[in-house]
């Protein structure tokens, strides 16, 4: 991996987060959900970094930990070179202007009891006192940058459609002029046509303001459209990471290959030679030896049950954690 010459906007190192389950009995030690097991990646300024994976792979946990919304068990998260793990909530507050979040559900993420102006200004208000004029000016600026109007500030969330609500949520994230916006399934709850509008808006914002995105999604098409780099997660680990075009054209991990095969493609109508994924995610509540994907992998052999494959370079800026990456790339 090449060392970045500038400071990355977001640098995550060996992030670990284990949730304790409630005790089943007084005499048993409580179990754990191993949500994140050592995740590392960098996001450079002005880039879009996609994180894909199925439900329960730790994507949202990763977002919450990057946003410092819960205690991290181990590892490091640096935003613009500032370590955020271990800081108290109050110490963290001034740093929060640099990283904001857009949530999945535009119906749940806006408080119905406040008007849009109040909602959009919330991150500013949280940072400290601000004059009425300054607040109004910044709200107008943020609303206009997402294609809404100044007069919308006096309306309430229920007067808007899902797509417009997500624009409001994006305006809220933009108001502090952040470097990094973490978008957790930000378009998943929207209709396809509205999804496209919001994705284009995100691209425009990136061109205009140079915002960096950490974009979490289960939708590969969306990630392919928006992101410069992609990381594929499985059971709290990154199993493959690389530039979007490299990863989509020559996947080096069987899980990535399966995810890509599952995307319906228009055209020929011929039966494609594709690998299907069997079973459900297993192994969230146990730590065992070998590859995390061993139970469902069509290529699994004996070594996969014993040795955990490390993330190794398979190309320029392209890493994968599989014993048989080479074999897989030759076939495709």
């Amino acid at each position, binding site marked *: 991996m090449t060392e970045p010459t500038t400071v990355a906007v977001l640098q995550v190192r060996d992030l670990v987060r284990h949730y304790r389950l409630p005790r089943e009995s007084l005499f048993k030690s409580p179990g754990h959900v191993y949500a994140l097991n050592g995740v590392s990646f960098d996001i450079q300024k002005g880039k879009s970094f996609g994180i894909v994976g199925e439900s329960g792979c730790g994507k949202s946990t990763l977002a919450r930990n990057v946003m410092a919304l819960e205690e991290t068990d181990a590892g490091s998260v640096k935003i613009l070179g500032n370590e955020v793990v271990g800081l108290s909530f109050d110490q963290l507050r001034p740093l929060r202007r640099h990283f904001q979040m857009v949530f999945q*559900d535009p119906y749940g993420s806006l408080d119905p009891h406040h008007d849009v102006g109040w909602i959009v200004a919330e991150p500013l208000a949280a940072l400290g006192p601000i004059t009425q004029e300054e607040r109004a000016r910044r709200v107008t600026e943020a609303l206009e940058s997402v294609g809404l109007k100044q007069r919308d500030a006096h309306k309430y969330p229920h007067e808007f459609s899902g797509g417009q609500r997500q624009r409001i949520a994006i305006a809220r994230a933009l108001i502090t002029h952040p470097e990094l916006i973490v978008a957790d399934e930000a378009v998943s709850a929207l209709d396809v046509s509205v999804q496209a509008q919001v994705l284009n808006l995100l691209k425009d914002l990136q061109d205009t303001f140079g915002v960096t995105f950490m974009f979490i999604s289960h939708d590969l098409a969306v990630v392919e459209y928006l992101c410069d780099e992609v990381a594929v997660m499985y059971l709290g680990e990154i199993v493959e990471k690389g530039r979007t075009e490299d990863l989509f054209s020559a996947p080096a991990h069987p899980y990535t290959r399966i995810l890509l095969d599952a995307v319906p493609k228009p055209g020929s109508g011929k039966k494609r030679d594709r690998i299907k994924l069997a079973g459900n995610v297993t192994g969230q509540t146990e730590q065992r030896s070998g590859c995390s994907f061993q139970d469902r992998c069509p290529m699994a052999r004996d070594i996969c049950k014993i040795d955990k494959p490390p993330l190794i370079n398979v190309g320029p800026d392209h890493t994968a954690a599989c014993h048989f990456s080479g074999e897989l790339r030759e076939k495709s």
Partner: protein
Amino acid sequence: MNSSTSLSFLARCRRSRSFMVGGVMTGFLLVCAAVSLFWTPGSAYDISIANRFLPPSSTHWLGTDQFGRDIVSMLMTGTQNSIAVAVVAVSIGLAVGVSLGLLAAARRGWTEELIMRFSDFSFAFPAILSAIMITAILGPGGVNSILAIGLYNIPVFARLVRGTANAIWTREFVMAARASGKDRFRITFEHIMPNILSIIIVQATILFAIAILAEAALSYLGLGTQPPHPSWGRMLNEAQALMFLDPWQAIYPGIAIATAVFGLNLLGDGLRDVLDPRLSRKR
């Protein structure tokens, strides 16, 4: 609030029959209490042996009792007494109970455990029993009965608020507020309170009815309002001995208590429909 919300709010008020009927009944009692502050048709205090057991007439609309006091005037002054007791008792419950509930939801952990176990403990005693116990310890009297009813209200509010506030804490807009750097105290005021306000109002209305009933019960037992102040409960008590001589003396305060409790319960139900349409659909 903007025009479209307030319009639909009024429309919902008109559509809810229980809100309208309950509102009228409660309003009538409030008017009686207010008027009794400066005018009553007769005297609720003056004893006049010559005028005992008078039948209804133009001077004594519902007649007089065994001491010659005007029954309408006693009922009206009794309304004032009941409402005053209920207002103070519910306010005690609101102030302490809501704060404890919000604190439990905001802090979680052992703070929540402590507050909730304390609530469970006080819930274990039936309301009227704990009220009797408190007045027995502190001595009978108006103020002590208010205190007893108020103390009973605290865990009711604490539980309700903690439960509903916990549900709001899991919502995404609270997470968004956390992500902007707002602390738990500020989120409680800016997000939790507005979102549970309607539920608190509904509960307060219903506890208001329970407080009126409890005050009447305590006064009936001689533990609440003391003579010579008129109170519905004491009127019932005094009429009990005369049940076969003059049953109307027991019926009038009975009607007053029933009207207050029924009216406030209807109003509470109506308010639930009006303030939170989602809740009423689940019933």
